[in-house]
C-alpha cells in the first residue's frame, strides 16, 4: 500500500528535469504527482523537509546481496534494508551467488525474494555457465526471467573469442554486458595494488595494467560489434583515459567508479587491515584523482558501490587469506558528498545525477527522476548532519566497512520506495 505524501519545503534536486529549488514533492498512488487535491492534502502524510535535500532515490547498479547460498553474509532483505538506509531505492544484484545466477530458475528465486525487499532489486545473469568462462549462459532465457544485464562480476571473461560472442549474442536481446576488467594472468595471487606500498608490505601486487588491457580489449570488441560494454569499478588512471578516448570516438562503452576508489588509496593498507582489501584494489593518489576527473568530464558514467558483504570471521584473517570486498550502501552518499562536493567542488545536482538518473539510464531502469508520473522513489537527506558511523548499528548483515568508527557528513533521513516510506530517522519502517 502506498501512501499519499506531501514532502514540504525541501531543496528538491532532480537532474532529469533540471530542477533545483526549494519546494514540495507530492506523491499519490505510488507515483510522483504534480499536485494533490484538497482532500488528498488533508489526509496526506506530511514530511517536513526544511533544510533537507529531496532527490530521486539513489540507484546502485553494482551490489552483492549473496542470496542464494551465502546468506550468512547478506540476504536480499538485509541488503535491501542497508540500501534503504543509504538512500538507495533501486539496486542491481551481481550473479556470483551460490549457485551462480546463470539460469532462469535461480533468477526466479532471486525475484521471489526481491518482492519482499525494502527497495527495488533487479537481478543480473551470468555471461558464462557457472562463471567458468567456457560456454555462454542462456542470455535469452535470463532476459525473459528478468535480468537487466549480464556479467561474470568477480571474474573477467578471459577468452577474447567468448567475450566477442557474448557481446554480439547479448546485443540481440538488448542486454548490456558488464565486465569485471582483470587479466587474470597478470594478477595470480595478487592482493593489493602493485607499487611502492606492496613492495614495502611484501604483498603480491595487482598491476593496473591488468585492468587496462581488458578495458582496451572491451573497447575494441565494442567498436567491432557495436555492443554496449560497461566496465565495472574502474580503478586505474589509464583505464579512465582509455574509456574517455573511446567515448570521443563514439564507441558504445560506459564505466562506473566506486566510492572507495575515489576516497581511498593504497596508503590505507599500511596495517594490513582487511577492511581495505577489495578487487580491484585501492590504487595510488594519481589514480584516485584520475577517477574523480573522469566522473567530472563524463569519461565515467556513474557511481556503483560494489557493496560486498563478508562475515566478520571471514575478514578476520591474515591479509592474504581474507576475501575481497567491503560494504558500501550505507556510506556511499556521505563519502561521495565529502570527496566530490566538499573536496572537489562538484555541484551537488551533478553528484546526485551520477548516483541516480545516469546509473538508471545505463541499464534502462525505470528510476532516477522526480518527474511527474515517475515511480515515487525518493531520498531525503540532511547534507549537513554529521554522525559517527558504526557498521554494527547498520542494516547489512556484515560489518566490513573501512568507514566504521568514522564521522560522516550527509545523513539520509527518509527513503521512499513506490510511494511508501521504507526508512525514516534511522529505522526501517
Amino acid at each position: 500500500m502506498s501512501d499519499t505524501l506531501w514532502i514540504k519545503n525541501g531543496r528538491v534536486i532532480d537532474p532529469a528535469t533540471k530542477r533545483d529549488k526549494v519546494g514540495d514533492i507530492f506523491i499519490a498512488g505510488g507515483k510522483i504527482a504534480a499536485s494533490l487535491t484538497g482532500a488528498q492534502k488533508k489526509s496526506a502524510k506530511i514530511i517536513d523537509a526544511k533544510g533537507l535535500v529531496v532527490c530521486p532515490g539513489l540507484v546502485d547498479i553494482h551490489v552483492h546481496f549473496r542470496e542464494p547460498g551465502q546468506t550468512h553474509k547478506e540476504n536480499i532483505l538485509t541488503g535491501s534494508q542497508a540500501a534503504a538506509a543509504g538512500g538507495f531505492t533501486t539496486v542491481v544484484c551481481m550473479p556470483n551467488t551460490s549457485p551462480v545466477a546463470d539460469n532462469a530458475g535461480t533468477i526466479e528465486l532471486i525475484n521471489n525474494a526481491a518482492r519482499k525487499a525494502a527497495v527495488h532489486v533487479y537481478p543480473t545473469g551470468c555471461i558464462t555457465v557457472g562463471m567458468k568462462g567456457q560456454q555462454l549462459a542462456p542470455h535469452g532465457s535470463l532476459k525473459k526471467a528478468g535480468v537487466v544485464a549480464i556479467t561474470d562480476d568477480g571474474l573477467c571473461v578471459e577468452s577474447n573469442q567468448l567475450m566477442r560472442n557474448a557481446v554480439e549474442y547479448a546485443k540481440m536481446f538488448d542486454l548490456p554486458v558488464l565486465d569485471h576488467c582483470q587479466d587474470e594472468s597478470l594478477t595470480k595471487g595478487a592482493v593489493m595494488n602493485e607499487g611502492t606500498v606492496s613492495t614495502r608490505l611484501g604483498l603480491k601486487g595487482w598491476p593496473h595494467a591488468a585492468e587496462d588491457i581488458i578495458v582496451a580489449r572491451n573497447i575494441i570488441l565494442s567498436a567491432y560489434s557495436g555492443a554496449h560494454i560497461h566496465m565495472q569499478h574502474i580503478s586505474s588512471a589509464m583505464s579512465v583515459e582509455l574509456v574517455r578516448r573511446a567515448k570521443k570516438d563514439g564507441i558504445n562503452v560506459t564505466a562506473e567508479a566506486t566510492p572507495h576508489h575515489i576516497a581511498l588509496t593504497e596508503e590505507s593498507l599500511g596495517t594490513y587491515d582487511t577492511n581495505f582489501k577489495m578487487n580491484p584494489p585501492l590504487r595510488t593518489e594519481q589514480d584516485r584523482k584520475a577517477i574523480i576527473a573522469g566522473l567530472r568530464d563524463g569519461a565515467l558514467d556513474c557511481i556503483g558501490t560494489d557493496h560486498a558483504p563478508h562475515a566478520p570471521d571471514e575478514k578476520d584473517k591474515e591479509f592474504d587469506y581474507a576475501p575481497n570486498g567491503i560494504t558500501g550502501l550505507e556510506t556511499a552518499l556521505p563519502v561521495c558528498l565529502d570527496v566530490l562536493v566538499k573536496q572537489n567542488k562538484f555541484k551537488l545536482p551533478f553528484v546526485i545525477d551520477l548516483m541516480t538518473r545516469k546509473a538508471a539510464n545505463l541499464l534502462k531502469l525505470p528510476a532516477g527522476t522526480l518527474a511527474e508520473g515517475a515511480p515515487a522513489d525518493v531520498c531525503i537527506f540532511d547534507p549537513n548532519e554529521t554522525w559517527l558511523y558504526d557498521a554494527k548499528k547498520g542494516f547489512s548483515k556484515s560489518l566490513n566497512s573501512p568507514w566504521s568508527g568514522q564521522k560522516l557528513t550527509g545523513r539520509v533521513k527518509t527513503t521512499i520506495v513506490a510511494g511508501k516510506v521504507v526508512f525514516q530517522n534511522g529505522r526501517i519502517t
Partner: protein
Amino acid sequence: MPWHRKHFLTIEELSRAEIEQVLATAGAFRRILDRKVKKVPALRGKTIVNLFLEPSTRTRISFEMAAKLLSADTISFDAASSSTTKGETLRDTAQNIQALNADMIVLRHSASGSPLYLSRVLGIPVVNAGDGAHEHPTQALLDVFTMREKLGSLKGRKVVILGDILFSRVARSNIHALTKLGADVTIVGPSTLVPHWFESLGVKVSHNLRSALGDADVVMLLRIQHERQAAGHFPSVGEYTSMFGLNKTRAEWIKPDAIIMHPGPINRGVEIDSDLADSPRSVILQQVTNGIAVRMAVLYLCAGGQPEHVTTPLE
C-alpha cells in the same frame, strides 16, 4: 633508554636507537656463547612456543637454541603437525597456545603481516620469525651484527644485495636495518626480480653486476628459488647463474677485504660457487652463530628484560 616493545614485528618500525639496543644486547649474549657454560637463567620458568606455519630448519633451530640458552622451555611445531591443516584459523591456534599458558609466540608464516595481526589478537608477545615476503627482522639484525663485527661502523659502507629481491623478506628487513644504520644499499639482479619500486625504500637498483660489485664492502647473496623460474621470472637457473651467479671471475671484481654473506640455505653452483662459499671472505657460518645471540637478545627484551641488565648480572 629502557626497551619498551612487547612484540618484535619489523625492522621498519624500529628506530636506529632501538636497533643499537638490540645489537648491544646481542653483543653481551654473543660473549656468553664463547664461554664454556653458555646457559643463562634469564628466562627460567618461561615457555616459548615456536609456531612455524611455513617450513624452516635453520631459523627454527636457532630460535630454539636461543630460548634454551636463556633457560626457557620451548615447544615447536610446524604446519604439518598443527591443526591449521584441519582448518583452524591462525587466531584460534594462537589463542589456544596462549590459553596453554605460553609466555611468548615466535611465528613463521607465509602470509605477510600475520605477526602484526597476531599481536593485535594476543596478550602475549609475538616475535616475527619471517612473514611472507615482508620481513625477517632477526635475520637482518644478525646480518648487521656480523657486518659490524667484520667492518665496524656501517655508516657510508656499500652493501650489495644480489638475487631474488622481489620475494625476499630478508632483503626488505636488511634494507630497513642498513639504511637506518647509514649504509648505502644497492640491490642487484634480473629486472623481473629487482623491480624499480624498491627505490622508494631508499636503495639503488642495478642490473649491472660488475659496476655494483666494484666498490662493495659487503656482498649479500640471496637464494634463487626454482619456482620463480616456473613463474617466468627468469628463463632458467643456468641463465641466472651465467648472468648473476657469483663465481671466481666475478669475485675478482670485489675488493679483497669485502665480505660475502648468505642467509642460507645456499644453492651451491647457482647463486654462489662452492669455493667462494667456503672461502675466508665468506662469513656465512658466523652469521648462523651470531643468529643465536641476536635471537637471545630479542627473546630476552620482549620478555621484559632490559638491555643494561645483560652485562652485569649475567656475566
